[in-house]
């Protein structure tokens, strides 16, 4: 479904030039969910943003369903890949009702039966019709994230990119959103690419995980490796250990990894 080959992207110029992602390769099958884990500055979100066309100056090839995507995207080409952002407070327009937010993609792509579709999608993300005409400030963080997921789904895409979708939420709300995401994936046969700094969250939703550090994938791991901690790269091991909570003895062995 998704094939990325030799993807690189550079920001800035001259002395301040930073190569955010180097020779990145990715291959995700249809219906699979793939996780990208890394710390801030590792380039994990940059990959997602390039895929949806926020950045256009990358090199390499990105193929979705066999079709290479152009650097300049046409509206129609965007329809099959949507994104859910991290901050549920920042990703909804504060002056638009839920209805306006959800109807807009339908208007842009000229889709019919708007009211029906909006009500259906609201039901699917677990919000009743009574939420349809509320403004974002009348919703809780979890409800906003549900609206953001509904907005991504309303165009019936095949690929959803998740950029830290639960890291701004309380743990109990995080559990609800994670459950919703896995239920939606099963129901619609969606392909997920999820980015997070939290190994446990990615591990819960994804069957394959790539660990990124400073713009490079250092290791790719399976579910089993994730469970047992049988990992090759030192950075991955550190991340795995740190995700298990505070451990004074293990910390002593941590190194800065360039």
């Amino acid at each position, binding site marked *: 479904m998704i094939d990325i080959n030799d993807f690189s992207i550079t920001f800035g110029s001259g002395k301040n030039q930073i190569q955010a992602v180097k020779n990145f390769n990715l291959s995700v099958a249809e219906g699979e969910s793939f996780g990208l884990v890394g*710390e*801030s500055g590792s380039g994990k979100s940059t990959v997602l943003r390039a895929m949806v066309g926020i950045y256009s100056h990358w090199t390499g090839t990105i193929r979705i369903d066999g079709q290479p995507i152009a650097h300049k995207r046409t509206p129609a080409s965007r329809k099959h890949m949507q994104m859910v952002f991290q901050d549920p407070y920042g990703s909804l327009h504060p002056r638009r009702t839920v209805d306006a937010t959800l109807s807009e993609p339908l208007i842009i792509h000229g889709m019919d039966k708007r009211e029906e579709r909006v009500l259906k999608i609201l039901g699917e993300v677990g919000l009743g019709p009574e939420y349809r005409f509320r403004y974002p400030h009348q919703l809780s*963080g979890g409800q906003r994230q549900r609206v953001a997921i509904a907005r991504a789904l309303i165009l019936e895409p095949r690929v959803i990119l998740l950029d830290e979708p639960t890291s701004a939420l*309380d*743990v*109990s709300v*995080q*559990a*609800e959103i*994670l*459950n919703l995401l*896995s*239920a939606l994936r099963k129901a619609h046969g969606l392909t997920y690419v999820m980015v997070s*700094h*939290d*190994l*446990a*969250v990615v*591990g*819960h*939703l994804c*069957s394959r995980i790539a660990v990124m550090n400073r713009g490079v994938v250092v290791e790719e791991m399976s579910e089993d490796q*994730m*469970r047992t901690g049988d990992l090759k790269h030192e950075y991955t091991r*550190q*991340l*795995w250990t*740190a*995700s*298990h*909570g*505070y*451990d*004074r003895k293990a*910390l002593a062995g*941590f190194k800065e990894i360039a």
Partner: protein
Amino acid sequence: MNGSFNKEPLREEPMLSVRDLHVRFSTSKGLVHAVRGVSFDLGRERLGIVGESGSGKSQTGRALLRLTAGNGRIEAEKLMFSGMDLMHANARTMRNIRGSRISMIMQDPKYSLNPVLTVGAQIAESCRRHENIPRTEAKKRALSMLDTVHIREPEKVYSLYPHQVSGGMGQRIMIAMMLITNPDVMIADEPTSALDVTVQMQVLSLLDDMVRERGMGLVLISHDLQLVSSFCDRVLVMYGGRIMETLDAKRLDEAQHPYTRGLLNCLPRLDGRHDDLPVLERDPAWLAQPSDASGVFEQ
């Protein structure tokens, strides 16, 4: 529950003693009762306060220093800090206590550091504010403090501005600034949530050292139950402004309260399956119960 704690000698004399603490805010939508009758003692230990957003955990931390925002009112039967009554202390006494005897670290160092002064100058300034020592002496102490918090090139970092340092470095600098006055109690409100996991561990180990080496009391406020329980000695679990349960951190698995159990169960686990996570059911009856007061040392 209380009987399950090992009574170590240093816990006999609490440094900080809180009884029946209430914090109320008057807002345009009416009175908001953020903290409802919280009681606990703090010895020379690592005490965690855990709760979700709106549980009153941060307001509890602020109330200890009487840093509650202008429209809030603090009430407590007792708010004692090593023999001093913080409830009735005047503004001047409070200013002297803040920073020099009780310090506070906030979540994001970006907003806690003055952007137009070098970090070194800020640490030295904080040192001079509490002790009347010459400038060169203050600088020397600031440099050695930067070294204490494991900053590799203290001389270089001393002359950097806050925007030139990374998040983890910034939080270490904040800790250095708070520790230079040698406080008895440190209140850390989500000190590591803005940081990467591995950096998070390093900052925590630093706080750990301070508690061990200096006999400091630490209050760690966080939303992350797993992290707090792996780090602290005792954990207070808060919900709706009340303490639901006081736990020995090592016996987290024995937690009794359904809220604590719910919080633990809804966390995705590294060794877990892809089954649906249990969703936390909140029982309105929890809000009717009085706060759990077993965080208090028996006297």
